[in-house]
């Protein structure tokens, strides 16, 4: 019996690596610390009522933000470990299997569990406020999306200490990801972690599309919408069309691994290249899913801090729409080397290059908006200014990669690595960070400290170029991606060492940002106006942080830049706001079902991962019961009485 348990434990838990044992200890200690703090301060009830069961989009946004920052930390540590291993030739810091696992988890986490939730954080915090709504279209579903993401990410992350991490790359190409080549459970963690959080992402896409189409304040026409809202609309359409493909692709890989199917195997008539096609039919739109909201953020920031309306509003909208369509017709550029033939490759090369055109239009529009504006170099604007040249270079190297014959040379080299990090860090990460700095006062009621922020900013920026410029050169020198070490004779050592230094500079930048947050919680400049940047859109018309119901009275919108126009009008009239008639506000009730249902999904995913059918079935039955329980719930909303609204508004210093 004892032998059996020992046997089980030695395969169930990841063993044999001092790094992992360290992590085990850290995880256990942190868990105990959290449990202790919550119990000691009697905070369990608070946690359940205020956070775990909330359907308030602002709180859900904050939870997304916290989770994504944690994931940025984990993904970042992965990155630093890899860079340490590559700093010098023939290092023995990580062995090859460990290196494989780390580049896999790094990529997956950064895209799916860092970028996506950070994006959803901003969707949640900003969109309803920008369009003058009191919540999203389906608040319950919104909470469910978050918890599905959360437990999906948890499932993926525990593979680190239980069972073993996936190690066949962030897109898990077969046959490497098939049972024949990856017999362990790591690949199952990958499939189920992404699958569970993917359902949540799909639901968010539907939710925000309907929110934007149907919940705008009266008078706000589509062409009056703030640019960020437009970008979210475009992204939601991309999510709706792309994510089902991901669901199917991973589902088929699961069928292969669990039921012995032959979709992508080398035998039985399977076709591995079909997986590669399918995953990129999702994957390329996915990179635009994460970049478009960043474009939207930059548009808001450029316009606010240049004190001008955005240049070429219509062309901005059209550019995003064209990008959304083209994004579905470029996927083959990720595997020109498949050898589909000159005609096919030429088609995809041209569509890929075509995307650079609308993107260029956007860049020029930002530049023209700034032209002759009174630019204020606040933190959000700094990141925006850093983004423009960085993204221009990233786009240019993208066009180089899109030249199909040339790509036979660049493909899977460090040149490619440098390209996509340049667009993903310089575009997506800089964009979301800019957005976080910009909307932070709206979320928490205080600004983030400028001085520490500048340290973070410069470290990130210098670090970025120091890290990735050498990688372009390394690519040309023949260094391929996913190598865990290299020889002295290749002459790659100096550039690799430089690159590692850059990576650590970025890491230091992140540390400064965390310090900045901690410092600003105590000393940050409080925002009592609700409009700290002299903003232009509706979110700045209400107090910071926004009250539970957002708008005591739904605003009447007459055109774009609604709040800017209202401010002008108020100045001209000399009056403050006219007295308004408050009415009871209709709000959704909190619910524990999203949390509980996601726990059951987690159980099901865990069961499938270990092929413990009883556990998987138990989890799925739990999910079913939760769905039914929700279906039978009719009492799902309530009204906030006028008295309470008055009291809240008074406390926030608003005359009503």
């Amino acid at each position, binding site marked *: 019996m004892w032998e059996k348990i020992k046997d089980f434990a030695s395969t169930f838990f990841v063993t044999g690596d001092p790094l992992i044992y360290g992590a085990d200890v850290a995880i256990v200690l942190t868990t105990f610390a959290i449990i202790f703090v919550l119990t000691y301060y009697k905070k369990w009830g608070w946690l359940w009522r205020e956070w775990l069961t909330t359907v308030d989009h602002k709180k859900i946004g904050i939870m997304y933000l916290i989770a994504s920052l944690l994931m940025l930390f984990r993904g970042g540590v992965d990155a630093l470990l890899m860079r340490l291993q590559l700093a010098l030739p023939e290092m023995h810091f990580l062995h090859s299997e460990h290196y494989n696992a780390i580049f896999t988890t790094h990529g997956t986490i950064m895209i799916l569990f860092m970028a996506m939730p950070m994006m959803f954080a901003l969707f949640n915090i900003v969109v309803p406020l920008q369009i003058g709504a009191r919540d999203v279209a389906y608040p319950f579903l919104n909470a469910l999306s978050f918890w599905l993401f959360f437990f999906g990410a948890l499932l993926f992350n525990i593979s680190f200490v239980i069972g073993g991490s996936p190690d066949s790359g962030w897109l898990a190409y077969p046959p490497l990801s098939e049972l024949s080549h990856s017999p362990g459970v790591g690949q199952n963690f990958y499939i189920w972690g992404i699958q569970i959080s993917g359902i949540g992402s799909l639901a968010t896409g*539907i939710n925000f599309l*309907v929110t934007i189409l*149907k919940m705008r304040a009266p008078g706000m026409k589509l062409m009056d919408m703030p640019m960020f809202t437009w970008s979210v609309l475009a992204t939601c359409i991309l999510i709706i069309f792309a*994510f*089902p493909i991901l669901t199917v692709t991973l589902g088929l890989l699961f069928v*292969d691994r669990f039921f012995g199917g032959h*979709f992508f*195997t080398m035998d039985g008539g399977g076709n591995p290249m*079909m997986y590669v096609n399918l995953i990129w039919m999702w994957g390329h739109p996915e990179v635009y899913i994460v970049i478009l909201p960043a474009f939207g953020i930059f548009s808001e920031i450029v316009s606010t801090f240049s004190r001008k309306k955005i240049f070429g509003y219509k062309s901005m909208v059209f550019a995003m729409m064209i990008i959304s369509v083209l994004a579905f017709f470029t996927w083959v550029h990720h595997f020109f080397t498949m050898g589909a033939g000159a005609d096919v490759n030429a088609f995809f090369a041209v569509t890929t290059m075509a995307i650079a055109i609308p993107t260029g239009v956007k860049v020029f529009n930002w530049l023209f908006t700034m032209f002759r504006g009174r630019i204020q170099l606040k933190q959000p604007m700094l990141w925006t200014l850093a983004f423009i040249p960085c993204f221009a270079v990233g786009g240019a190297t993208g066009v180089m990669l899109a030249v199909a014959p040339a790509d036979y040379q660049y493909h899977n080299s460090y040149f490619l690595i440098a390209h996509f990090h340049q667009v993903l860090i310089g575009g997506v990460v800089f964009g979301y960070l800019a957005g976080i700095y910009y909307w932070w006062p709206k979320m928490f009621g205080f600004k983030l400290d400028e001085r520490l922020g500048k340290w973070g900013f410069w470290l990130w920026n210098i670090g970025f170029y120091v890290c990735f410029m050498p990688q372009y050169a390394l690519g040309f020198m023949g260094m391929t991606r996913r190598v865990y070490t290299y020889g002295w004779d290749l002459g790659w050592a100096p550039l690799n060492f430089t690159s590692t230094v850059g990576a650590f500079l970025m890491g230091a930048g992140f540390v400064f940002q965390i310090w900045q947050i901690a410092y600003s919680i105590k000393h940050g400049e409080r925002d009592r106006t609700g409009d700290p940047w002299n903003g232009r859109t509706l979110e700045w018309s209400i107090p910071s942080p926004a009250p539970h119901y957002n708008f005591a009275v739904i605003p009447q919108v007459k055109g774009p830049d609604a709040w800017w126009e209202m401010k002008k009008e108020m100045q001209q009239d000399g009056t403050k706001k006219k007295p308004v008639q408050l009415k009871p506000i209709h709000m959704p009730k909190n619910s524990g079902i999203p949390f509980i249902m996601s726990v059951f999904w987690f159980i099901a995913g865990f069961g499938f991962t270990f092929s413990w059918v009883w556990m998987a079935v138990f989890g799925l039955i739990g999910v079913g019961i939760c769905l039914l329980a929700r279906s039978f719930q009719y009492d799902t909303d*309530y009204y906030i009485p006028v008295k309470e609204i008055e009291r809240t508004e008074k406390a926030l210093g608003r005359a009503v």
Partner: protein
Amino acid sequence: MEHAASHHKHHHDDHHDQESLKTLGFWIFLVTDCILFGTLFATYVVLRTNTAGGPVGKEIFDVAGFVAETFILLTSSFTSGLAVLAMHKGKIKELITWLIVTALLGLAFIGLEINEFYHMVMEGATISTSAFLSAFFTLVGTHGLHVSFGLIWMIAIMIQLGRHGINPVTSRKVYNICLYWHFLDVVWIFLFTVVYLMGVM
């Protein structure tokens, strides 16, 4: 519930019409489901000739069986339409009766499908025999799972109709389940053509 409903009328312009909002979302969900099936169909078409020495469609598809399935599912789509008509006339008994008929037909469909799968497996044509069969079982099975899910949902709605009668919430639910049912019917028409007819031809 009563309370919320009466409030609902009072503050109608205060918040958007919840029920039509949910129906719109359901339509968009169906779009995503379309893409899901589209991807499965594409995979099937790519792999349908990869039989790897295993049986081909002609050898394992039972014409009488899949024609019966088709007939039953089409009829159930029709009866679900009758249910919605009864709902519009406010006739709750008729509505529930048609839903029961629809559900029974759906159950018969699932029964036939399980029977079909069972026979194939007994003849040695399993999901792991060849890429063709993996694609076949996955595509048809996914449709079958959708129908089964719809059945449970339909029963839940019937119980709710019994409890609450026809009101904006329950009629939205009836409308959406019938929409779903028609959608699955359309998917089946494609299955019938692409998988079965082209398979036995």
